């Protein structure tokens, strides 16, 4: 019974969502819209679950003073601060006047605080993490990108051609460089990519059918049949 009901729900909804693709009737579309709304509610609820999970995972580690527990304190304070100003600030840019209530004033200042935290804390931190890639790629290029065999040599040459092809210097060295880069992307790359895409799509269909038919139960905590 523990798995029978979820399997029945999976079967019914799975079959319905496949069939609606081929049945453009109004009633079917209405039902699909309803299911999609349920999906949105579930997806939004995942945010709350995520927040609870972060607290559940980190608080015991802080209590036990595990290694790097100080960072976990920073994480929780930052998450709570962002959530607090975000929730209180709301969506609208609030203005204040002499007649503003305390709640309106707090909303206005929370919005400002949210913008400040986003622009001056989150955005620079987020960009910094991504920017570090440039430094590590340069280091990795020097130490690891070696023409040890034929395949590695081909990859190395292709990488150098594509890198030159996307910068103006490549075009300055040889006018055909951008065309060569486009050829590599549109033929060599696409041939491999499309093969992977078609393979993955067929795999997706097979896995989907196994889930709908109840042959794959690992997502329910069960076994494969």
């Amino acid at each position, binding site marked *: 019974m523990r798995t029978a009901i979820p399997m029945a729900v999976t079967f019914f909804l799975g079959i319905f969502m496949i069939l609606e*693709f081929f049945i453009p009737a109004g009633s079917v*579309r209405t039902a*699909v*819209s309803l299911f*999609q*709304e349920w*999906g*949105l509610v579930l*997806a*939004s609820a*995942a*945010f709350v679950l995520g927040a609870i999970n972060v607290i559940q995972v980190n608080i015991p580690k802080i209590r036990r003073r595990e290694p790097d527990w100080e960072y976990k304190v920073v994480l929780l304070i930052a998450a709570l601060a962002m959530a607090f100003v975000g929730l209180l600030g709301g*969506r*609208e840019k609030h203005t204040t006047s002499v007649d503003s209530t305390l709640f309106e004033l707090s909303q206005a200042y929370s919005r400002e605080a949210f*913008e400040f935290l*986003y*622009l001056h804390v*989150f*955005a*620079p931190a*987020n*960009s910094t*993490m*991504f920017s570090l890639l*440039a*430094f590590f*790629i*340069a*280091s990795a*290029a*020097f*130490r*690891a*990108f*070696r*023409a040890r065999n034929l395949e590695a040599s081909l990859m*190395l040459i292709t*990488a*150098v051609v594509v*890198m*030159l092809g*996307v*910068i*103006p*210097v490549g*075009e*300055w060295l040889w006018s055909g460089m*951008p065309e060569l880069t*486009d050829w590599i*992307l*549109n033929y060599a*790359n*696409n041939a491999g*990519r*499309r093969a992977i*895409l078609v393979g993955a799509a067929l795999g997706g269909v097979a896995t989907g059918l196994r889930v709908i038919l109840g042959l794959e139960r690992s997502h329910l905590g069960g076994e494969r049949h």
Partner: protein
Amino acid sequence: MIAELQALDRRWLFLSMALAIVLPLLFPIGMEFSVSPMVRAIFDEVESLPPKSTVMISVDYDPAAQPELEPFTRGLVRHVLSRGCRLVFVTLWDKAPPIVLSILREVVDGEYVRGRGYFEGEPHPDYSYGDDYVFLGFKEGKQIVINGMGQNFRQMWPTDWRGTALDDLPVMESIQTLRDFRLIVSSGAGAPGPREYVQQVVARHGLRFAAASTAVSVTDLTPYYPNQIFGLVGGMRGSAEYEQLLGYAGQGTAGLNVLTFGQLLTIGAILLGNVLYFLGLLRARRRR
């Protein structure tokens, strides 16, 4: 000498990369570059838009991808505005709303409405929020939202980001599904983004769809070009190409300068690493 170079402290490489990034920003060099057919296709499509047609831009990136995608997104907004079209912004990324709001504030209101920057001396005071452009906000749900937009746009986005009902927004009066947009562009740095639009709605509803992505994701999207995605802007280079088509050198072009020196340094590091590797092999063979 070879052994010393092979054991080069990587901080020298970090310093070189820092200089390769900072110096071109301080002393920009203007090198000519051609425009790829993938980028030109988007430009030509916008050029052919009739005035008052509605364009949807899905801003699906976070601050990390801003340097690569924002120059194109802002360029596209300027281009669409110059054609007198209406704009609808959405985002499927929770970190993107402040980015969209800054585009609305600085490009739509700051430049187009007030006649500054790209639209210097040509103010359009009648172009207003709700009548001509709107931001519908962020919606969680990823592919479900995209799929839903194809079926019933208004159910997925019943209000704009401020909470105003779509029925009260004249810009949305003719929009029921994604098919009602003359052009849809997703400027995205990952999932959900252009690939999810292609998989969920583009082929199914026969949409006119273009995309922009970070350079690292371009190879994920080229298999869909030109049938599902008729135009594709890839990373900093694509943004610079679009700026060139629009006739100005903005952040994308400045970024391409940085990219040029960064790529040259990386290529140099690859070559140096391999020269040292082969010299080391030769030396070891001679010793034997």
